[in-house]
């Protein structure tokens, strides 16, 4: 044992050395687990020998199996009334024990119902252990622990590994969409390695930092890189009772990821391999040259400008390909089609082993994922320019019972990502695609060189293929080592646990930028020999790959200690409690440019606790509290106390309902508490600081060559009274099950008042000359809403059907913001909602000149019929920026929908998920939305439904065309605010499990083949691009995925 312990210490120290060591360690861990196994067999012998006594001992042999007859290794067999004496079953479930002939043997194992069998002088005893279903299913993960489901009083919801694995995605956050009521997911990009979703819990309660706290196995960490196969559950904690233990960090809700742990039993090896085809979908469509220029002619005419160049004959040449020069002189390039592949591949494989003996359990998993990008021409160069992610996941979660009372846990996980991208970033590249109209220049020149045009956007082909590439290496290590010590000698049910977690992320990004030349091809259009043109060089580059490297790392260490207590008195009083002390510090990756302050560690410290008391499985009372703080506030204002009280009444356990045939569960829950947020304004905002050596200095001298000085200035004005943001949350919930669980419902109503919101003191006049107004705790936001989930399960013979629908709604109102009373009230935040759109109110389009004359004067620019007409919101007879204000519509969804249909028949299974969001709007603004505003591509949608002189429809979808930026129309107004409501057929999975009789022959226990489709169909009013895009047209699109996979276990 000592030796074993020693081994572990050695290997944790070595763990910092990087990836190779990591692999080595995983091997060590596996070996150690096996070693532990071996050790136990030897160890048991002295016990038997020392158990010599007066009665006549006999040897008892036997086997322990589960109900299906499979042998159970690691079952503890003890002798009733004789502490410390017993044995453990071997790998096949067999055992041999020498006991008195009248002894009673006790068979116990986690997850199974304990059995007692009298020996009665028998020499062979076979036992079948039944799984303890109630215990397996009824334990839920809560903040810093687990709880019997019966005793849960807070609002939380969780999803299991099985559900998560249904969505084949590279990013775990994307698997959560539609599966957790109250959790809003927004995926705005599909770029390999950057396609995670933003998560928000229960709408928005503050206008500062809005993201929830995410913990993996109890340690603050990021969720995206984790392999879904490694995850046991993902839980979302919503109300104060559930989050009070996170104190100053919990106000925005908490997401808990719990990874799988080993279970006693023979090794279960599971291999899953799948491969997918990803197709971009909901990409904006643009007009071809002929159509775009035809519209441009219309725009020039609308503006009263010279359109004599754009004769029909001229326009027709953009479609005429009868002469080889035409495609160069009259180009028509569909950039999306030319540069984007219709599909790309993603493959992933996961191999995990799960098992253990009575004293050691292990879960070891490794995974590989390769996601290919959509860029064409990735084989043009000797190097790859495509966006590609290779991800390797390693995890080993080991539990060892060092002593009956002392348990060691060790979690090691490493995520290695190796990504490749073109030098041009996705956002730049996709904006080039929309900024480069089809008629500007050809894809390439006849000699293959990159084409271009003076004073025009860069050629997207050139930027993609000739600009070099980047390789990004990244390594994320997470490790947790911990001990749990039972303290029965102090009191029964008390245990002590301490853990140390260390996380390290390192990256090395190599960018190999390449500067290239661009040319304009000039030739006579009637020329038939393309070699007879000449080339004008527009930009010059040497064509050599440059080299730039950026490497950095972050570190986080967490230490925590718990006292846990869990005891049942008189079979009716269940008391559990938890007290935890923690401190953590993290150093983020910073660069010289970020300054020294950014390199200071972020620290947290706190004591949190929970007491839960339940009486007779009917009444539950719980008190949770966090007392914690962060370094971000002034001494004396750092620590905050965050209490929550909650109660539950399980009516169905009352005498009068106990035998109800209709209601199998009815539970009421209620909670009230206070939680906080500490990180929504910059660091150390309580300090007044000066910046020295900055660029705003001055150089004297006759030729600006004299004495020079950098600048020094006050940069931040502190507010020493600053403290955390506070949230008071109330939650009332009900859970019920009817017809023996056929129908299950969980519903919650919540209100939240966020106060002391950390915000800028916009009430201080600028005459004070303070450059950066100090932060204060001032805003108040009320947030309320509800969520409900109903499940219907039914079995008809071999048919199993499950339907689950969920709906969540949250709305908020800013009751107070640190702002003055505005003379124009619609300009103030008060009374608005978080993420509310700001701009003008559009009243349709101007019909004619008389309409313009009869309306208030619009002062943004010249106005013609077909231009947008605005509301004179302040009634002063003119329309200008004074009429801009909050518009009562939000740019994030208010409701989230989810609907799951699951059906199994014999060996077939089918699972369908619909997911949607409603109540939000999107800005349809910027290049392309505003045709010809900046020489960009024109949306195909403009062909129909725009205002024209022939069809002067004041309610047309698009205003009249202008040949340049129409300043009047191109203001943020309700005209450009379009609904982002959508419902998606998010996921369909069909699986077939091969009959056991077949696969037994090849030595396997289970084979399941499955096919999955993701993002199959979207119903949305926003037809132009995907409604989940948060930034208008967005960049790399989301993917529609068709996936085939197989899972085999041994």
């Amino acid at each position, binding site marked *: 044992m000592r030796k074993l312990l020693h081994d572990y210490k050695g290997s944790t120290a070595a763990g910092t050395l990087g990836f190779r060591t990591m692999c080595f360690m995983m091997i060590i861990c596996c070996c150690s687990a096996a070693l532990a196994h071996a050790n136990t067999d030897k160890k048991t012998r002295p016990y038997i020998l020392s158990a010599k006594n007066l009665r006549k001992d006999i040897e008892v042999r036997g086997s322990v199996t589960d109900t299906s007859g499979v042998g159970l290794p690691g079952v503890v067999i003890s002798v009733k009334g004789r502490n410390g004496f017993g044995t453990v079953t071997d790998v096949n479930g067999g055992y041999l024990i020498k006991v008195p002939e009248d002894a009673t043997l006790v068979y116990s194992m986690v997850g199974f119902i304990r059995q007692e069998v009298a020996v009665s002088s028998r020499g062979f005893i076979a036992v079948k252990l039944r799984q303890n279903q109630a215990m397996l299913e009824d334990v839920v993960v809560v903040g810093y622990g687990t709880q019997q489901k019966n005793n849960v009083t807070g609002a939380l919801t969780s999803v299991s590994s099985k559900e998560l694995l249904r969505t084949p995605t590279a990013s775990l956050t994307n698997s959560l969409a539609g599966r957790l009521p109250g959790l809003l997911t927004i995926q705005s990009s599909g770029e390999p390695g950057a396609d995670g979703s933003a998560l928000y819990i229960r709408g928005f309660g503050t206008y500062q930092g809005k993201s929830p706290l995410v913990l993996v196995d109890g340690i603050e960490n990021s969720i995206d890189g984790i392999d879904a196969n490694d995850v046991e559950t993902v839980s979302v904690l919503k109300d104060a009772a559930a989050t009070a233990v996170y104190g100053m960090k919990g106000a925005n809700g908490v997401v808990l990821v719990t990874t799988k742990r080993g279970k006693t039993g023979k090794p279960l090896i599971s291999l899953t391999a799948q491969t997918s085809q990803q197709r971009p979908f909901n990409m904006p469509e643009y007009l071809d040259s002929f159509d775009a220029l035809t519209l441009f002619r219309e725009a020039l005419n609308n503006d009263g400008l010279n359109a004599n160049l754009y004769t029909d004959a001229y326009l027709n040449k953009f479609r005429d390909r009868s002469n080889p020069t035409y495609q160069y002189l009259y180009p028509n390039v569909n950039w999306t089609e030319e540069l984007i592949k219709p599909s790309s591949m993603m493959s992933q494989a996961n191999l995990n082993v799960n098992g253990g003996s009575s004293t050691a359990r292990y879960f070891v998993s490794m995974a590989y994922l390769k996601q290919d990008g959509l860029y064409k021409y990735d084989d043009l160069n000797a190097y790859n320019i495509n966006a590609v992610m290779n991800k390797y996941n390693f995890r080993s979660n080991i539990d060892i019972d060092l002593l009956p009372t002392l348990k060691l846990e060790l979690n090691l996980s490493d995520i290695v990502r190796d990504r490749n991208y073109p030098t041009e970033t996705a956002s730049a590249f996709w904006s080039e695609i929309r900024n480069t109209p089809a008629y500007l220049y050809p894809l390439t020149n006849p000699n293959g060189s990159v084409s271009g045009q003076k004073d025009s956007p860069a050629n997207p082909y050139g930027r993609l293929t000739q600009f070099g590439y980047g390789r990004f290496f990244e390594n994320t290590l997470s490790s947790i080592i911990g001990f749990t010590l039972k303290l029965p000698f102090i009191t029964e049910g008390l245990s002590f646990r301490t853990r140390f977690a260390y996380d390290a992320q390192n990256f090395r990004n190599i960018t190999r930028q390449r500067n290239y030349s661009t040319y304009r091809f000039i030739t006579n259009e009637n020329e038939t020999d393309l070699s007879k043109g000449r080339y004008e060089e527009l930009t010059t580059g040497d064509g050599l790959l440059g080299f730039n490297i950026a490497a950095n790392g972050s570190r986080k260490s967490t230490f925590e200690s718990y006292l846990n207590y869990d005891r049942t008195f008189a079979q009716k009083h269940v008391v559990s409690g938890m007290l935890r002390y923690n401190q953590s510090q993290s150093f983020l990756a910073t660069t010289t440019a970020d300054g020294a302050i950014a390199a200071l560690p972020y620290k947290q*410290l706190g004591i949190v606790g929970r007491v839960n008391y339940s009486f007779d499985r009917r009444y539950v009372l719980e008190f949770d509290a966090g007392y914690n703080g962060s*370094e971000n506030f002034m001494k004396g204002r750092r620590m905050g106390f965050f209490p929550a009280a909650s109660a539950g009444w399980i009516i169905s356990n009352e005498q009068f309902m106990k035998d109800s045939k209709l209601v199998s569960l009815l539970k009421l829950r209620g909670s009230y508490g206070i939680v906080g947020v500490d990180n929504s304004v910059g660091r150390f905002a309580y300090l007044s600081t000066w910046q020295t050596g900055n660029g705003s200095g001055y150089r004297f001298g006759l030729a600006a060559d004299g004495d020079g000085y950098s600048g020094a200035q006050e940069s931040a004005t502190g507010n020493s009274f600053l403290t955390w943001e506070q949230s008071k949350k109330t939650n009332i919930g009900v859970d019920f099950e009817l017809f023996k669980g056929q129908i299950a419902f969980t519903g919650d109503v919540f209100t939240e008042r966020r106060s002391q919101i950390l915000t800028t*003191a916009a009430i201080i006049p600028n005459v004070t*000359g303070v450059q950066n107004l100090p932060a*204060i705790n001032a805003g108040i936001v009320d947030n309320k809403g509800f969520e409900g989930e109903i499940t219907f399960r039914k079995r008809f013979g071999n048919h199993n059907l499950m339907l689950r629908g969920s709906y969540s709604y949250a709305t908020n109102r800013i009751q107070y913001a640190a702002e003055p009373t505005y003379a124009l009230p619609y300009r103030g935040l008060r009374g608005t909602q978080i993420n509310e759109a700001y701009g003008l109110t559009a009243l349709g389009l101007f019909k004619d000149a008389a309409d313009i004359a009869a309306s208030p004067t619009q002062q*943004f620019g010249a106005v013609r019929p077909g231009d947008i007409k605005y509301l004179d919101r302040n009634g002063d007879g003119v329309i200008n920026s004074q009429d801009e204000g909050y518009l009562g519509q939000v740019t994030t969804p208010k409701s989230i929908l989810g609907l799951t249909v699951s059906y199994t028949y014999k060996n077939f299974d089918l699972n369908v998920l619909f997911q949607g969001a409603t109540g939000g709007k999107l800005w349809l603004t910027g290049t392309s939305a505003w045709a*010809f505003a900046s020489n960009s591509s024109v949306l195909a949608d403009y062909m129909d439904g725009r205002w024209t002189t022939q069809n002067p429809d004041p309610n047309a979808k698009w205003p009249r065309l202008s040949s340049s930026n129409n300043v009047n129309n191109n203001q943020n107004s309700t005209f450009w605010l379009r609904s982002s409501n959508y419902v998606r057929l998010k996921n369909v999975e069909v699986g077939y499990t091969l009959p056991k009789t077949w696969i037994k022959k090849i030595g396997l226990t289970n084979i399941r083949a499955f096919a999955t489709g993701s993002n199959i169909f979207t119903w949305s009013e926003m037809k132009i691009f995907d409604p989940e895009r948060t930034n208008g047209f967005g960049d790399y699109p989301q993917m529609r995925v068709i996936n085939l996979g197989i899972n085999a276990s041994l």
Partner: protein
Amino acid sequence: MLHCNLMKNITKLLLAVLLFSTTSCKKYLDVVPAEYSSENDVYNNINLTEQALARLYNALPNELTSPLTAATDETYHHWFDNGEAIDAYKYNLGAWSTNDNPYGNWSGKYQDIRRANIFIKRIDAVPVPLDRESYYAIWKPRYKAEARFLRAQFYFELFKRYGAVPLITSSNDVDPGNLEDTQVARNSVDEVVNFITSECDEISTVLPLTQEAAQTGRVTKGAALALKARTLLYAASPLFNGNPLYANIQNKDGKVLFSRSYDKEKWKKAADAAKAVIDLGIYKLYAPFPDNPVQNYAAQFYTRDYTETIFQRILGNSTDIDGNYLPNGSPFKGNGKLTPLQQFVDAYEMKNGYPINQTGSGYSTTGVWSGQLWDGLKFQTVSNISNMYKDRDPRFYASIFFQYDVWRFDATKRPVRLAWYGAGNGITDGWATGKSGTNPWGYNVRKFLSPGYDRNANSGTGTRNFPIFRLAEMYLNYAEAMNEYLDAPDQSVYQYLNLVRGRVAMPNLPILPADNTKGGMRNRIQNERRIELAFESQRFWDVRRWLIAKTVDNAPALGLNARPSAAELSSTGLDVSSEAAGVAVFYKTVTLQNRVFADKHYLMPIPQSEIDKDPNLVQNYGW
């Protein structure tokens, strides 16, 4: 019992870890925020204090790149896609407002003032190294005077925008819990003017007359006196001097913010102050090319010459302005940012001193001429130039590019071509392509451009400073103030005006009978100022203080017909893509924009957000 001992040991160990961590937690959250620099750090170190002063200098205006010229009757800015252009548009169309005033600079200037206040309060007590005590014995009082000048300059920026503004001369800490301390009221125009001028008077005794070469650009006595002169000129002007529109603007306690009666003596004070600068006798008009009046004027704007400059914003070498202003065509490769308006071109007198619309001026809009033009480096023979551009004030040739004008002819090979010609991606030096974004209207700005810079070959650079005060302005200030003070102009008015004209070989005034009247001379002086100080961001303010903006900025902005219609081109009977067709319809004025200027626009509004926050602030007239 091996395992029992082990267990006890482990328990001890774990409890020790717990104990250790809880005892250390007290200091755990002290993350050394002392690593931040504070005000005390800066003002306990003379080198950092000098940085704070440099930051104040950095806030001096650089009007070289100012967009103000496009917001008055000088130019038209046609970078539609550029935020700046849309700002100018707001002023052109009267669309700016109490919360949308991009040139207001209210908070920016008060930030600068706060920085100056802190500096002035703390400079005396800054410790200096023992071995440099004698050095700083001279320089510390100067630094303080420089900061006071700069603060006065910041107040002048506010004064010309808003008139009466709160005078804040101390730098109190801001307590978000005590808002009333931050709520100040406006001071009257007279108080603001008195503050600026008394500051200038006091520091002018401390400041040196000149600075050594390496310190050029530091405030001198002349700078302080020039700021005083300009402030008093503004204060005497009709906008502030008994303007009846503003009679009722008063604070909530009844304090009158704008003097209600006209005071002629204010002109005398302004004249005396300008004279005081002139009488320093150390500045003289830049005129190194007596035989080349065009170059005599032009060169001072692209060289670092200090004969005329009283106070300057020092600028590093840069070709940004060349890139922005040069015509677009391939030999020039510029961005043609600004188009001088036709009415601005028309303001240049004939070289005989007659305004163009004066009988006998010799001005003609028809026909062409050939002759010699200065291309920036040498004289070149040119032809086919419209008679509109014949025999004009030499400053016209130095300030404006027009059709068939020449620029660095050897390098560019051909004259400027701003009229429409060519189909498709047009060949003109403008952007007359029908493509969006930019529209030239027949002229480009030439003043400030450096012929030493070849944009085509990307060789050479631009070396210039921006003259915040130059002697010519003081001459014009004096002439204007005297003309307003006297009942009829006399030699004191003509004398300095003629010096300015003499530099560019313009004939002496009086020329016409009207030049002997106060009103006639007022027109002459205002026009002289418009021409001499073209594009220097003076006109925007001048038309306001003279109360003429409602006439000149409330009119159509005119340009030439550089974007003819198809019908116009084909009616010439020439090939519609030919240069000849474009030129044939070019010399015709077209309206670029109908500009709007109302009474309320003379002064800028106090930002509405400030009035919302501070109940003591009252708004300006009409807003």
